[in-house]
């Protein structure tokens, strides 16, 4: 059985597989050899076609589709999505919120596609929609399960919510987590959910800026506060608890280690507070591993997010153990020790 010049076999693949399973040793070898060549040829053909078309290849050889963004203007009202103001491929408009939303969606899509071969938030090419100017003096931004929504801020404490790329990527990453590990938004699982959004939020920003882990500022939401606020950002992964200390907002409550873990019924058990601990672990791992944070630390965290063994109710220690295992499996012993040491430094002892 030899392949035709076009790369197809005379015998269909399923028959070859039957021979491979049930035939004599010689028949099996021949069938497997043909299948291997056939598979290689199919893959080569598919790759050639993809390279010709300029498309990227996703994790299973399925092409990452081109991004499809639409930005809407809610014009100060509460109705979604609002009026279409910028579609995919259109030139920048006069409204900076629109352009920032458009660019932020694009940067997040490109990061996940380029670095992890992920095809949009759901890994199936989900169109990315955003609405700006939602509500009046609306002091927040969120992913509603289908689209991004951005407020203008009140101008007193907060600027426009499109101003910070890592916040945009943070919100979109909630969609990724919802598609993968589905970490429940409560207690330690919720703090992990929050942390993962901060991790990939920061990585998108670092990727756009071409920064190494050492060069990054590891701040989330820089630029969001007005000049009236005594603070630099919503959170710091490098130094949890130092991002703000303001008369109205209070002081940044984040702990850096388990010694400061906050037991509370507020904020779903402190998901935005205790996220400081896994955030700091990631910062420590990324800086110890060196280079660009998305290459090793980010990959380990991403594969852990997609790890089928990770439960929606995962605790810090369960997540930490998974990152340690994935570090070994993806890279090796040194990376494994480095990740374990980072967790140990924040008080999560994830095993030898």
């Amino acid at each position, binding site marked *: 059985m030899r392949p035709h010049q076009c790369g197809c076999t005379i015998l269909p693949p399923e028959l070859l597989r039957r021979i491979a399973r049930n035939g004599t040793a010689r028949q099996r070898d021949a069938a497997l050899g043909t299948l291997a060549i056939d598979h290689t040829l199919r893959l080569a053909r598919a790759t050639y076609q993809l390279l010709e078309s300029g498309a990227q290849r996703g994790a299973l050889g399925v092409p990452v589709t081109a991004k499809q963004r639409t930005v809407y203007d809610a014009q100060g009202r*509460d109705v979604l999505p609002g009026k279409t103001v910028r579609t995919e491929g259109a030139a920048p408009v006069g409204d900076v919120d629109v352009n920032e939303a458009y660019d932020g969606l694009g940067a997040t899509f490109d990061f996940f596609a380029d670095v992890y071969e992920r095809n949009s938030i759901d890994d199936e090419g989900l169109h990315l929609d955003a609405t700006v100017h939602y509500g009046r003096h609306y002091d927040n931004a*969120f992913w509603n399960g289908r689209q991004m*929504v951005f407020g203008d801020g009140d101008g007193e404490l907060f600027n426009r919510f499109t101003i910070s790329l890592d916040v945009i990527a943070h919100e979109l990453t909630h969609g990724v987590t919802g598609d993968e590990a589905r970490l429940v*938004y409560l207690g330690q699982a919720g703090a992990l959910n929050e942390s993962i959004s901060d991790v990939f939020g920061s990585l998108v920003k670092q990727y756009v800026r071409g920064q190494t882990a050492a060069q990054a500022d590891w701040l989330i*939401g820089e630029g969001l506060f007005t000049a009236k606020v005594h603070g630099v950002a*919503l959170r710091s992964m490098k130094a949890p608890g130092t991002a703000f200390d303001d008369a109205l907002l*209070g002081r940044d409550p984040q702990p850096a280690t388990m010694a400061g873990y906050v037991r509370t019924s507020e904020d779903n058990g402190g998901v935005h507070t205790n996220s400081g601990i896994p955030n700091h672990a990631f910062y420590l791992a990324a800086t110890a591993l060196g280079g660009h944070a998305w290459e090793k630390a980010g990959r380990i965290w991403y594969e852990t997010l997609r790890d089928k063994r990770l439960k929606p109710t995962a605790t810090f220690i369960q997540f930490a153990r998974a990152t340690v295992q994935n570090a070994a499996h993806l890279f090796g012993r040194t990376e494994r020790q480095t990740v374990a040491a980072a967790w140990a430094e924040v008080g999560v002892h994830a095993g030898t």
Partner: protein
Amino acid sequence: MRIDFRIDGGLAAFPGLAKPVTIDCDRLSPQDNARLRELVRRADLFQRPRRASPAMPDARVYTIALDDGGQCRTVTVPEPIADPALRALVDALAQHAAAVRRAR
């Protein structure tokens, strides 16, 4: 009529914003008092479920504890708030709460 108002959640934990604020209607100007009572009436809190469905990530959750001198009712509402009357009440309470915080 007194209202205890809290904002929970959002993009970040802000201890200053998470502390409850008490709005005593009788201490407001007559206009503000009347307006707030009207918003409370329209929001019809006693007919609402005490706790709505769980909020999305980074959405804020508002807790309104109303004491109208006769009855008490606590209602927890996540954003985005679909009902215009409830949204108007929350917006007004948020503004009053901001004023109370600034005066602290």
